[in-house]
């Protein structure tokens, strides 16, 4: 039994499929995400694939300060993803609201709506920072799986995995 679980854990670490959602960003960060998916950075080396549908995805990569219009949609997309799932907040806006903080129409950060696992500051973030964040998320996940991975109730703690702010000097 534990062998099967180990195999599944290994698979989870080796094949993160992402879905990208724009929660009211200025589009700068989105272009950087698209940039990170180009052949130049070759994310398939790490097993990362971009999927169109939340049902296939493991990691939700969000950008933007969550405008009131996108709030419900963001929640809905998150709910549609199957467990275990992770969220990466990409860009200063997604972390804290950034330049839009205090604006009447934004909530100011992804974590006001859904739990976030990794924050990547930067305006706009660099593709290297996004890749590094995914690798750190997977590293933290591995530590978590190796550490307290004996009960089946691993899902509930996933939302706190690797809750760390990482900065990237590019």
């Amino acid at each position, binding site marked *: 039994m534990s062998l099967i679980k180990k195999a599944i854990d290994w698979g989870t670490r*080796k094949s993160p499929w992402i879905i990208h959602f724009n929660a009211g960003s200025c589009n700068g960060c989105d272009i950087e995400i698209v940039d990170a998916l180009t052949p130049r950075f070759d994310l398939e080396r790490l097993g990362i694939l971009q999927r169109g549908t939340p049902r*296939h995805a493991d990691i939700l990569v969000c950008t933007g300060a969550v405008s009131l219009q996108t709030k419900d949609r963001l929640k809905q997309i998150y709910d549609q993803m*199957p467990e*275990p799932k992770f969220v990466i907040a990409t860009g200063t806006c997604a972390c804290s609201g950034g330049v839009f903080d205090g604006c009447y129409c934004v909530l100011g950060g992804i974590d006001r709506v859904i739990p976030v696992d990794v924050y990547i500051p930067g305006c706009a973030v660099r593709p290297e920072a996004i890749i590094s964040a995914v690798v750190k998320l997977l590293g933290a996940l591995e530590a978590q799986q190796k550490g307290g991975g004996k009960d089946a109730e691993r899902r509930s703690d996933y939302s706190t995995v690797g809750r760390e702010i990482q900065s990237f000097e590019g």
Partner: protein
Amino acid sequence: MLLGLGKILIFPGFLFLTVYSLLFEYLDRKVYARLQNRMGPPWYQPLADFLKLIGKEVIIPAEANKTMFQVLPVISLSAVAAAFIYVPVLGKEAIASFEGDLIVVLYFLTIPTMCLFLAGWYSRGVYATVGSVRTLTQLFAYEVPLFMALLAPALIAKTWSVTGMTAFFAEHPLYILINIPALFVALVAAQGKLERVPFDTPEAETEIVAGPLVEYSGRLLAIFRITIDCELVMIASLVSAIFLPFMTGNIALDFVLYLVKTVAVLLFLALMRSVMARLRIEQMVNFCWKYLAPIAILQIVINLLVRGWLGL
């Protein structure tokens, strides 16, 4: 009895098929990546994807038909596995064969496509429905050329069994030259059957998200993915059994030859996938009926003439 069961379940049957199909997916993605000047995924990537999907939560949409939603992936996988029994892997002999198994194999290969259509239909999503209707439209376009292209060599071999055709063409390898247009038609139509670029309109991820599989998650998606990989192996084996049956007579060598031939077919399909862009659905239907079907009919006429001329 036990030996037969072992052959069907382990080698060269189901277990071999799944392992080889994971390897095939890796090769396909690696070649695709190398042609795009990338490194590509590591060798264990398809296995990791499969294991991950097995471990994920299965979500069934509230409006979907629960039974059909869960049964369809299993049916399609078993249809492909059943078809694989009739294709020669070790030498000239398939695990089982009878006169007319070519037709059975072709119909078994239609089942996964139908399952894909039903899967999209029963998921009740907008994207899934659009995708499944496209799957069905595409089926009508490539199925006829594919059938005709695979049946044309049967006219020369004068047998309707895959094993019989392999044996015939292995004895008379030069007849293969006549069938080159049919080989071309079969490869292009196979690309349509497998829903790969340029015929991936049904699952076009940039316009209709993921087509019929949009609502699938977890192990149901894993089974569907492995079905598609197995179908790839199946088509490659079928094409190499019918069109490239060069044999040495030694079982081990023949098996190596089988691997070489199927990988060659895969390389061709991967090349086609990398250098082309997606067609619209009506372009695809037009292409199949305007060019592929006439070539296949021409092939049948040629084969009939050759047969009469040589007095076979």
